[in-house]
């Protein structure tokens, strides 16, 4: 519809030291108001110490049809995980 406020994705950092996490979306006429609205919508219960907003249309997402090509190859790399290297119980500090 004409004149609808654009959609923004909202990311909140809950505590210092943690990464911003996607919490939801909202509508706002511009970035500054998106921040204000995010404060009023998504931090009512003390959820945040920092807010990021990104216009939803500006997000580039991977194509779901590429899922196998993108992510399946990682499944065969077991040596990238710590459990791949069993250690003798009696050796400490590893």
């Amino acid at each position: 519809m004409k004149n609808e406020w654009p959609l923004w994705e909202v990311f909140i950092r809950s505590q210092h030291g943690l990464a911003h996490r996607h919490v939801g979306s909202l509508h706002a006429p511009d970035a500054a108001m998106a921040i204000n609205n995010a404060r009023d919508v998504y931090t009512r219960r003390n959820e945040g110490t920092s807010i990021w907003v990104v216009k939803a249309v500006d997000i580039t997402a991977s194509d779901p049809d590429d899922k196998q090509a993108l992510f399946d190859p990682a499944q065969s790399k077991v040596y990238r995980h710590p459990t791949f290297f069993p250690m003798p119980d009696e050796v400490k500090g590893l």
Partner: protein
Amino acid sequence: MYAQMVDTGSPDNQALDAREARFQQRIDDGIRIEPQDWMPERYRKTLIRQISQHAHSEIVGQLPEGNWITRAPSLKRKAILLAKVQDEAGHGLYLYSAAETLGISRDQMVDDLHTGKAKYSSIFNYPTLTWADVGAIGWLVDGSAIMNQIPLCRCSYGPYARAMIRVCKEEAFHMRQGYDLMLALCRGTPAQKAMAQDALNRWWWPSLMMFGPPDGDSVHSAQSQAWKIKLFTNDELRQKMVDQTVPQAEYLGLTIPDADLKWNAERGHYDYGAIDWDEFYAVVKGNGPCNRERLDTRRQAWDDGAWFREALVAHADKQAQREHARAA
């Protein structure tokens, strides 16, 4: 429930094509469907109907309780109610956002509500006549809603499930708030207790109707269950609500207005009397006590706010142009 009688579209008579079979397999395997994934058009449309109906219910649902904000009898109760009605707005917002991922705009959904094309829960077309109604809504209506919403946190569509997780986190205690309000009335003066009983008398049956028609009449249930966007049947949830509520009413010293209500040891459930489905369908069709008022209020708020929404867009455009000019 907040989404009643959601049409799932006409099932294809042709055998499911391979893509749809793969889609169903993913759901059966418990893999969430995400916005960019391929999905059958009927799944997408059904979800839009269900999620937007749920969102509209939250938004229209602000009105009956909102009716008592300015008359809340203590400052503490006023703060609780104001925050709660605001929470409903938030829930509407989360749900609209989830529906938007399916390719419909919020304005379009709002328009569908205002033209009567989209529905919202029948329960909000009943009036809140006394302060006790605010308690009854929290206790019975939110209590019923949460029963349906918790399973939806595991539904097949990712954005819907995530919205429900957020809603449930905020809503779980609304029922307690309502019960706490009823408790204060039932421990109060005879007039207060009478107010509580009167509210239960008026809200009991509409609360049971809220789960939607009996399973036998619920034509779209099977498809929705296969898609995992409906996880329990209407009658299952209704029975659960009755079983949960009877002892709570007893504790309050209130009488549930159903002469046929009794414990059935064999079934391990309460039996309850016949529901007046004519009343339910009348309300769904628009002839409940408050259908017209509720929609008129929403339409008027929307129309009155048009200048505000347009002006903020105009200002943002001007600012963007100014920045552009400065940069050039």
